[in-house]
Structures are given as structure tokens and as C-alpha cells.
């Protein structure tokens, strides 16, 4: 038996200086390195459920697959519907990540999927989980993030989601054909984006009809 007396020595301040986001950034950089080593241009496509992410990817794959080896990773909480919609459009490989409950992809999940990607791809589209909140805070290590917003989300969609649109490299404003039907003035989100991110490229699309896709590809320097 050993007998101890414990005495209070008082309080001290201990320096910790740890950025808990740093690990996320390390993982994103690992992906960047992986893409660079393979000459693979990767893009993150984010946006709300139903905004047009899968339509955009399907359109871009169709236009690019003649001259490029394109891959797609689709992310969703459940189902393989998005991957199925893109399959048969010309992509060399289509993978689906089901996150289970996570509201976003992150660099670690993407890295896991990359281990299953075929060699020889030169373009990769990664469709993020559908919402304008969570993906904003998780860099995947891609070349650019495209955020798709649609007329049916209302005139104030930009103001309501500042973190997401501040993280965008390109914004696609989709469903322009139904703006009037849903009583949305598209000049409002465009003005809000200009105020929030002066100089940020914005492309209006009607992806069901394939309109605006060439401008998106040009903005991404994929043409």
C-alpha cells in the first residue's frame, strides 16, 4: 500500500497553439499533390439538393469525353442515383461515395475514393453532398470549386449562405428558364455576388436544355 497526499498547486495557463483545422488542410494538400503527380485536373461541384450539380456534371462529361479521360466521384448521404445519372455519358469511371450521415465530403473521403480511380484520367468532377452550408468548411484539395445555385432557391440564396459563396471559384446560376415562374429576379443574386465577391465569374444556365455549359467550360479553362 502507498499513501499519497494530493495538494492543490493552483492554476496555470498552458500554451497549446493548435489549429484543429490544420489536419483538414494537410489532407486537402495530400489530395492536391496526388492530382499534380498524375496531371489530373479536379473540380468540386457543390450546391443545394436539386440545384443542378449532377446535370452540370453530366453535360460537361458529354462535351469533354471525346477529347479527355473524365472521371466522376458523386457524393451523397445515401443512394447511387447521381452516379447512375452520369453513367453512360462518356466518363471513363464513375464512383459513388455514400457518407452515411455526413453532410459534406471531406479530403479524407475523397482520398479513399481516389485509391480506386483508374490511371490515365485527366479530368475529375467531384459532386459534393447537396447543401450550401457544410461543404463550405471542408476543402477537398481540388483546382476549383463550382457552386451551383438555382432560381428555385429564391432571390436571397447568396446572402443566406455567405461561407459557401465566399469559397466558390465559379458560380453557376441554373434554372434561369423558370425564374419568372417562381417569382425570382435573377439580378438580385448577381448583385449580391458582385458585392460579396467582386470579379467572381458567374454563368447563367438552363442545364436541362444544355444552355450555358460551354461558358462554364470556358470559365474553367476546359475548352
Amino acid at each position, binding site marked *: 500500500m502507498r499513501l499519497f497526499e494530493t495538494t492543490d498547486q493552483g492554476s496555470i495557463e498552458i500554451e497549446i*497553439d493548435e489549429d484543429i483545422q490544420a489536419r483538414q488542410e494537410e489532407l486537402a494538400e495530400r489530395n492536391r499533390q496526388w492530382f499534380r503527380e498524375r496531371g489530373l485536373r479536379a473540380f468540386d461541384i457543390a450546391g443545394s439538393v436539386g440545384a443542378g450539380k449532377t446535370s452540370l456534371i453530366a453535360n460537361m462529361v458529354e462535351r469533354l469525353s471525346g477529347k479527355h479521360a473524365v472521371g466522376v466521384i458523386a457524393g451523397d448521404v445515401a443512394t447511387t442515383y447521381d452516379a447512375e445519372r452520369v453513367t453512360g455519358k462518356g466518363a471513363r469511371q464513375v464512383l459513388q461515395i455514400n457518407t452515411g450521415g455526413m453532410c459534406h465530403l471531406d479530403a479524407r473521403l475523397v482520398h479513399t475514393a481516389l485509391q480506386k480511380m483508374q490511371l490515365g484520367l485527366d479530368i475529375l468532377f467531384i459532386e459534393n453532398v447537396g447543401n450550401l452550408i457544410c461543404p463550405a468548411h471542408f476543402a477537398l484539395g481540388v483546382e476549383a470549386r463550382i457552386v451551383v445555385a438555382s432560381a428555385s432557391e429564391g432571390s436571397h440564396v447568396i446572402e443566406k449562405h455567405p461561407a459557401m459563396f465566399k469559397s466558390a471559384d465559379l458560380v453557376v446560376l441554373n434554372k434561369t428558364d423558370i425564374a419568372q415562374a417562381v417569382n425570382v429576379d435573377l439580378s438580385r443574386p448577381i448583385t449580391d455576388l458582385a458585392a460579396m465577391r467582386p470579379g467572381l465569374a458567374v454563368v447563367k444556365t438552363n442545364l436541362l436544355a444544355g444552355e450555358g455549359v460551354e461558358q462554364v467550360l470556358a470559365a474553367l479553362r476546359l475548352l
Partner: protein
Amino acid sequence: MHELSIASQIWTSVKKAAAEHGAARVRSIKLEIGALQMIEEEQLAFWIQALAERDDSPAVDLKITTVPDGLQIRVVSAEVDVTASTLLGRDTT
């Protein structure tokens, strides 16, 4: 929306540092949080408190500095109670 997982990471970091200093309890935590993280500070404080109570720490005071346009979540320092244990004797019988 991710306040619980962020709180969990913060608490893990602080507990580890406290243990390295032989500290029994955490009194306060200083954080720097980027405004673009859009973290709800009350939720964060709630979850850190819940984790602290689970580990027998008393009420933990959060001192948060918000960094405009920043994205960091930095655990700057923590105030901890340090105890010392003195061996009084052994019974070898």
C-alpha cells in the same frame, strides 16, 4: 452545425495538454475562431461543457477571439488546476 465535433476536437486537444502538465481539471480555454466558420458560440460552449462534465472538470469558461474573414479554429491556451501528489509512506506489512 458541426459544433459537437469541433467541441470534441478542442476538448481532446486540451485534455492531452492538461495531462502532459499533470493537470487534473480545466478552468478555461482560449480560442481563436475565424468568423467564416460561422460557429454558434453558445452551442460550442454547451458541448464543451457537456464533455468537461463527463470528465469531471468544473464549469469551463470559454474565451473566444473572433478573427474577421478567418477560417481557423485555434486552441490558444488553457487554464488548468495543477495538483501535486506527495508520497507520505508505504506499508510493507
